[in-house]
């Protein structure tokens, strides 16, 4: 099963490497990984999307907690949460396709953030499935380039992850 795990980690050199190293050394899967500093400059927050049985997820959580730089670990998928991912996608948009592409972007609430004679670059956020659906909805041969951030997530309501 797919799980989204949030990790608060000391903002130190090597911390990210130690975490990703643990996943590969123990044969756990990483589907996506995002990391950035938090409002507290001493800490970064990582979001890892992984797949595994409940036993595997329990092992991952324990191994993460064992790393000295890891301050807190939460499996967001245990309860209500939201996730978002950002995608930038560059598509061919010549005179012929321009309108169709713009309309499709509007339907998915994407924004065109760069325009050239024959391309549009569209910014789109949402959960992974929505981004996948947008890619599917486009003419496949028109897609020139995509870049996705991987998911980040946060608990609903009073579910708060902090030290």
């Amino acid at each position, binding site marked *: 099963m797919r799980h989204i795990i949030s990790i608060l980690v000391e903002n130190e050199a090597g911390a990210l490497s130690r975490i990703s190293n643990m996943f590969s050394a123990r044969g756990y899967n990483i589907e996506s990984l995002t990391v950035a500093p938090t409002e507290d400059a001493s800490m970064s927050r990582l979001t890892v999307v992984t797949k595994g049985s409940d036993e595997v997820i329990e092992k991952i959580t324990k191994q993460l*907690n064992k790393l000295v730089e890891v301050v807190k670990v939460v499996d967001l998928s245990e309860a209500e949460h939201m996730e978002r991912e950002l995608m930038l996608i560059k598509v061919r948009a010549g005179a012929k396709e321009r309108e169709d592409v713009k309309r499709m972007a509007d339907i998915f609430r994407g924004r065109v953030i760069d325009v050239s004679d024959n391309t549009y670059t569209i910014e789109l956020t949402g959960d992974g499935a929505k981004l996948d659906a947008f890619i599917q909805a486009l003419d496949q041969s028109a897609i020139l380039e995509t870049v996705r951030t991987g998911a980040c997530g946060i608990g609903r309501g009073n579910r708060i992850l902090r030290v």
Partner: protein
Amino acid sequence: MTTATPRSGPKPAPPPGRPAPAQAAVTPRVESVAGDRYDNVPMTGAQSLVRSLEEIGCEVVFGIPGGTILPAYDPLLDSTRVRHVLVRHEQGAGHAATGYAQATGKVGVCMATSGPGATNLVTPIADAHMDSIPVVAITGQQSRPLIGTDAFQEADITGITMPITKHNTLVTDAAEIPRAIAEAFHLASTGRPGPVLVDIPKDVTTHKTEFHYPDSVSMRSYNPVKKGHAGQIKKAVQLLQDAERPMIYTGGGIVLSNAAPKLKELVKRTGFPITNTLMGLGGYSGTDAQFLGMLGMHGTYEANMAMQHCDVLIAIGARFDDRVIGNPAHFAQNPRKIIHIDIDPSSISKRVKVDVPIVGNIPDVLDDLLLLLGKSGSKDIKAWWKQIEEWRGKDCLKYDRASKVIKPQFVLEKLYEVTGGDAFITSDVGQHQMWAAQFYKFEQPRRWINSGGLGTMGFGLPAAMGVTLANPGATVACVTGESSIQMCLQELSTCKQYRLPIKIINLNNKYMGMVRQWQEFFHGNRYAESYMDALPDFVKLAEGYGHSGLLIDKPADVEPALRETFKRKNDLVFLDFITDQAENVYPMIPGGKGITEMILSEDL
């Protein structure tokens, strides 16, 4: 020098060509450090490093100097509290630090230069990591402006050792050295112990700084638990009281947490059978009637059978590894309730699903458990003991005592007798290690020092150096084989320099014996590269290093040779026993098989 550090002047160099005067003991830390904290005293990063080691009570450092660590060696020359032991290869430094730590429970310290010095520490660091031994490794690193430029003797040692250390750190500011050292010792020795590496660039050690030693160490992300969960302990006690076929299975955690006295109380109060893992030997008396011997791949028949057929298993400071329970699916065929006490949550339910997990420091948990257990008795387990005695009746460790060639088991039995069971025994890895584990009955923890998890050939001799330096005057023997001993043989020179009277028990069957055994069983007697041709004359070799050696090739000579050797308190003696080439270690669970699918000597 412009610093205010008091200097006692360099120690006189030993005359060339002669061994250094024997130093009777590691200088104990006699005075309190509170009076001379040297706070705010200007000094170099290197001096700050040595001061920090003094503050923390480090008595001995094993290492070899070299380019980037040179500044750190300079103030070591003046230290009256920290003694440096010059090894002959950094691997020896790491294993010596491990042996020191295993024998004392204190943190072992090793030091090396950057590049090859640091990478030579990789094996002993991985070894200490697998066996959870508290070791701090200090490595030199290229100066900060050179890092990342493929400079001479540059290696990314923090990157390399990331998966094999409990933690590691690159110190980038001289002012941070005392905290880095204090944290390294704290991390290495608390919670589940393990190796910590501190990498210090050369320009950080030469940089001027002020010395501030932290009053205490606290890390928000690192808070190992002590007390176990009360509700879980209650559940465990209930299971123990209801058990009809109980079994106690303990590992290295008992030794590491100094829990042997509490374990003894548990065993005696319950009357339950107990087995130890390879790392746990000495955690419980090897001669007590309730002790079933070691379990696992080369464990006793009775211990393995009892593990499989018990109805309640209490595992304490052990981790159900593959060499212990064999195939987990086979192990799970018999239903049983499992209680698991360990300080490391990630060890629980890792290979075997556990019913009652208790995370905590073993002595604390056992205190609480014994308190509850005291109130009511447990079931009558006479029938279970009767079954165990039947298994024990198989006498699974029997061997041919009438043999005309020396049986390795016989040497170990005699070693046990001659040393009165009271020696520190280190071992290398292979058949001799298993026979030592089977035939030397350890009464106390920290007497059996071996490489369990990593299985590092070459461990025994340097580990014995660490043990001897920690216990001057004690009887220390290194049980080894002709193949293992050659992997860190250079340390015979260190033994000469520091006059370490280790007794080397070399079981020489001219084969990498365990490899040969596996080839016999699993590769149709095809002995690919396991025969050790062109072996040196070990007697002459020992003599070449300034020690004595003796070759023994008749069973009748074994005991007299051992007796004579152990009388020589001040000498290293290399005993080369020519043993039966075809002898195998029994019982044996083939890899991937179940714990009861043992091959016994009688089956063949």
